[in-house]
């Protein structure tokens, strides 16, 4: 070993420093805590907006699932709708035929079914170029739509799955007309899934995904089994998408063919573009902005809001996604600085220990 005595004595201190630094990164920043406090506070703050908030929460979870594969593993997919739809129909059918009554158990099972389906199709996605991946993912989605259409005797076809009766959660909380319980349910599920996703992303596994996305050749050259990591994250993301689909069916007691449509996948991409990829909150923020944008546009031009969505997509691409991402990152940065200053005023002691604010 060629370390001099000077550095040898520094090593234990340095090691402790490094360990502390790494652990700090995984800690929840004040901004994140504020976000979730506000999210849960919305239950009491906006009692007349439960339905749109619930839809936003479902969309956020759906977008989170795409962020995991697109933002962290670099897989371009137009096919998350496939898992959304499979789980949507599954949860509807098990409720309708009384196979699984308890919604939470049904939701978990729907997620597992979607994940299994993701696992099986992951091998298709690993082969070929970006275009091939787009094609295959889109093709699987549309194909499932076709199958659901043909087996209308089971799925209800174009009319959708009728007669779905969702039992109360844990036997106590019914899905009422005002959507209160539905929203709380979705928000809690979203939070749980988010925490899991966050753990994954800050783990060695998550780091290896970022490495694979950045340089797959080198990742293999340092011993990472690239294919299996991608299969794993694709499966997990499929499971999350499935849970989102199950939530939609359970809270609306309905499921129709448009869960498999191109529209749904395209809207999802738009959500992530608006919110930004690769930092987990992109899907959530994007979902909020998208839903309220959609709501507003729908009041302007009820029938043709798709036109404006298309226009937004075109404009964002022309302006440049990096520029848009740059603006969002800058906005985040200034919010973080504002939050940091506020945090310092509230808790001066912990801030002095080296504020663990992400992104500084």
């Amino acid at each position, binding site marked *: 070993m060629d370390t001099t005595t000077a550095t040898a004595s520094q090593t234990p201190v340095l090691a402790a420093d490094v360990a502390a630094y790494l652990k700090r990164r995984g800690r929840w920043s004040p901004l994140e805590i504020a976000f979730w406090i506000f999210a849960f506070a919305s239950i009491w703050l906006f009692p007349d907006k439960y339905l749109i908030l619930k839809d936003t929460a479902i969309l956020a979870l759906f977008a989170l699932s795409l962020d995991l594969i697109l933002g962290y593993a670099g897989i371009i997919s137009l096919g998350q709708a496939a898992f959304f739809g499979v789980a949507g129909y599954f949860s509807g059918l098990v409720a309708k035929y009384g196979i699984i009554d308890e919604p939470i158990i049904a939701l978990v099972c729907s997620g597992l079914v979607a994940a299994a389906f993701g696992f099986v199709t992951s091998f298709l996605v690993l082969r070929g170029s970006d275009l091939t991946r787009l*094609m*295959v993912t889109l093709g699987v989605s549309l194909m499932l739509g076709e199958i659901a259409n043909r087996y209308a005797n089971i799925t209800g076809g174009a009319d959708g799955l009728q007669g779905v009766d969702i039992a109360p959660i844990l036997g106590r909380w019914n899905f009422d007309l005002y959507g209160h319980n539905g929203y709380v349910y979705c928000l809690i599920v979203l939070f749980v899934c988010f925490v899991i996703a966050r753990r994954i992303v800050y783990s060695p596994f998550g780091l290896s995904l970022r490495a694979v996305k950045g340089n797959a050749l080198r990742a293999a050259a340092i011993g990472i089994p690239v294919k299996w990591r991608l299969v794993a994250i694709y499966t997990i993301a499929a499971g999350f998408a499935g849970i989102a689909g199950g939530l939609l069916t359970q809270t609306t007691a309905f499921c129709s063919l448009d869960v498999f449509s191109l529209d749904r996948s395209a809207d999802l991409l738009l959500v992530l573009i608006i919110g930004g990829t690769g930092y987990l909150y992109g899907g959530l923020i994007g979902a909020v902005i998208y839903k309220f944008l959609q709501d507003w546009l729908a009041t302007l031009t009820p029938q043709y809001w*798709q036109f404006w969505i298309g*226009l937004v997509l*075109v404009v964002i691409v022309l302006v440049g996604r990096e520029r848009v991402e740059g603006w969002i990152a800058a906005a985040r940065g200034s919010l973080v600085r504002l939050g940091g200053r506020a945090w310092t005023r509230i808790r001066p002691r912990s801030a002095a220990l080296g504020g663990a604010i992400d992104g500084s």
Partner: protein
Amino acid sequence: MLTILFDGVAYGMLLFVLACGLSVTLGLMNFINLAHGSFAMAGGYCTVILVNRLGVPFVLGVPLAFLVTALLGGLFERTLYVHVYARSHLDQVLFTIGLVFMSVAAVDYTMGSSQRFVQIPDALQGQFDVFGVGMGKYRLLIIAVCGLLTIALQLILAKTRFGSRLRAAVDDQRVARGLGINVGAVFGITFAVGSGLAGLGGALGAEILGLDPTFPLRYMIYFLIVVTVGGTSSIVGPFLASILLGIADVAGKYYVPTLGAFVIYAIMIVVLIWRPQGLFARATAR
């Protein structure tokens, strides 16, 4: 069964005319244009307006649809698409999906959401009975027109100077530029012609494929299947792929109605697993 073969070939050739522009665009500029179907739709509605409303004869209405759509394609290319060429595939997908949404909504607004039919002249209605095989006159026309177009395209590619410039640019853009070929102009013309052909296909195909504002969304996957299965390095590949898919789709829907459309998706997935670059592409294609 022969009727099915006949119908399948007609359908396939129509698909080819619709999709060949997309294939060349993708092979030439590595650009994924999901809005290709919108040009086809434009051609269809153009013919509807010309023939149904303005009383232009069918024989004129179809070529006019080609011209109008080609001009539209050229315009869009110079003003919008040219900014997106260098972007990532994801950006191209988003951009063209955005265009699709806009076109679908715009057509819905201006023309209404119900299906439109082109008034086909009486001479083309009905069918010939050849050795007991029923051959629809209209479908015969489609085969004839598309067949001629295919031959014309192949001749242009193989025999003209423009064709060789195009082939060079598809093969290796940088080298082509280095040889003094104006790749930008080549692409502009190719894009316009490709869009025009899509419009022509839309005009001819309105009868068979069903023309309504959701046309681009419904048929986009078919065009993409043709392109991925057929590859982007020749005309022959997509041609054969289209015929194959046309026959498979018609036969599938007839013999196995419950899973009819499912057949072509399954073919696409199987092909992509087996040969990710397409059935007929060269191994070195992108």
